[in-house]
């Protein structure tokens, strides 16, 4: 292939460095002749482009046969001619190759343009520009409810802290699942944990943003994500403590105090940004309910306390998951008697 390359394209490909080298080889290798241009030169179709010397002879032979067949019938010859337009042999010839190559180039260019447009994560860059001191301050602030609700409170539109808190919650959930030997039958532990936490963060944020839009509250999507993400700090603390120290009452205390504090903070911030009693009530009631119930769900779904509940419900005599042999002498005796009576009657 390199020997057949035209002079113009040769020095460009052979002497280039590692970068342009492979790229140059790509574009030049497609047309065997024609100097490496991507434009299909229609003039070249008249000569032997693409076909070899033997094909020329075959083409002449076939054209002679077609002239002879014309006298007999034109329908058959016409079909043959379609496939052999100017000796190109249809899509398998030189024209087909050039068209396919050009379509591939255009498709690749469009795909890379679309990718760079939509998958551009640089639009998220300003939300990750934080200092460790800021993150620590915001974490502590998320547990302190604000008192001033008549003045719109400032929410930091930052995504690093919330994202790290969601991942921390995933890790704590995984740890809890492993220590309690939870078995997930459809799926993996990791997938379930990630799905639960990210689903809560993204789903409830979107739902609250939609409600805030309905209730005319002054909050943007990033701010909502940030607020709810920082609210997960209370969840992380509670679960971390109660997955390792298994006291029922301890969990309820933590649920009320820690969960309640972070919920109060989120609720206060939302209230300060909403006007009207009904709207405030809707927003805050929904957020408080979802937030507290999520903590309750996380504790009970992925923890060995599930077995403890079953124990207390069944009573002290019946250990859980144990088969007790059924004693049915009464039933079997009754069956025996009735069958005996039936046989006696027939006899």
């Amino acid at each position, binding site marked *: 292939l390199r020997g057949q390359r035209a002079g113009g394209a040769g020095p460009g*490909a*052979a*002497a*280039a*460095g*590692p*970068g342009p*080298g*492979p790229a140059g*080889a790509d574009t030049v290798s497609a047309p065997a002749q024609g100097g490496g241009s991507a434009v299909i030169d229609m003039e070249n179709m008249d000569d032997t482009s693409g076909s070899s010397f033997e094909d020329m002879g075959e083409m002449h032979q076939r054209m002679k046969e077609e002239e002879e067949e014309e006298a007999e019938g034109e329908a058959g010859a016409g079909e043959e001619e379609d496939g052999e337009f100017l000796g190109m042999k249809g899509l398998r010839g030189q024209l087909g190759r050039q068209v396919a190559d050009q379509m591939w180039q255009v498709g690749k260019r469009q795909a890379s343009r679309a990718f760079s447009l939509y998958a551009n*994560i*640089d639009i*998220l*860059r300003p939300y*990750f*520009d*934080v*200092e*460790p001191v800021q*993150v620590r301050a915001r974490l502590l602030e998320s547990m302190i409810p604000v008192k001033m609700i008549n003045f719109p409170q400032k929410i930091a539109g930052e995504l*690093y802290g919330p994202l*790290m808190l969601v*991942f*921390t919650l995933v*890790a704590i959930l*995984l*740890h809890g699942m*492993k*220590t309690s030997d939870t078995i997930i039958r459809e799926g993996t532990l*990791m997938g379930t944990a990630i799905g639960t936490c990210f689903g809560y963060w993204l789903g409830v944020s979107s739902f609250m943003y939609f409600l805030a839009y309905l209730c005319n509250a002054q909050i943007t999507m990033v701010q909502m994500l940030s607020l709810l993400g920082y609210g997960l700090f209370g969840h992380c603390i509670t679960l971390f403590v109660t997955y390792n120290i298994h006291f029922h009452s301890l969990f309820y205390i933590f649920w009320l105090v820690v969960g309640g504090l972070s919920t109060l903070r989120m609720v206060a911030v939302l209230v300060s940004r909403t006007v009207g009693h009904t709207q405030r009530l809707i927003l805050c009631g929904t957020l408080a309910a979802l937030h507290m119930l999520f903590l309750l769900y996380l504790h009970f779904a992925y923890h060995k306390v599930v077995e403890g509940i079953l124990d207390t419900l069944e009573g002290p005599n019946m250990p859980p998951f144990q088969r007790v042999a059924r004693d049915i002498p009464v039933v079997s005796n009754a069956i025996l008697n009735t069958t005996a009576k039936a046989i006696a009657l027939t006899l």
Partner: protein
Amino acid sequence: RHYGGYEYAQQGGFVPPDMVQQPYTGQIYQPTQSYSAASAQSFYGSSFEDEPPLLEELGINFDHIWQKTLTVLHPLKVADGSIMNETDLAGPMVFCLAFGATLLLAGKIQFGYVYGISAIGCLGMFCLLNLMSVTGVSFGCVASVLGYCLLPMILLSSFAIVFSLQGMMGIILTAGIIGWCSFSASKIFISALAMEGQQLLVAYPCALLYGVFALISIF
């Protein structure tokens, strides 16, 4: 980015400061360079004796791997930012295999989990570091650093073969090793990306990732 490294090597000797012997001036720095059209012509055109050794062609330099390993193992040693110029994945591959092998010795056949978590973790760190740093990073660089810093985790899992890690001592040892891994990784990242003052912010996601590896080792 690796074109810059190619010119750098061409200037006649990139010498890591902790290397005491003669600097290696072969074609080792850019593993992809061996397959380019220019050098391929010179190699394939010559005779058998002129071909470079196999390891050099593959880009595996045991000496560099050893130097990088030492950098990871000394957490208090200052990392050189120029380590990141060469992305070599041979060392990380060896460490992942060794980690899987030590898990196998403990009776856990979980190679799939190790590879899956490392792939997803590298992807996540790649996105995060691209968002947090002024200059971007390449995926190979992130994978290389995270792979090298997996070495202390191999110590943990080999310890788990003989002793159970579920007691108090196991928890302390695990926490220490996770801290060691994430501290080394964040040290290399911030020295290479010039993100001063954000070491804790980079160390925390690394700690989460290595924590998941530790979970596999323990349970």
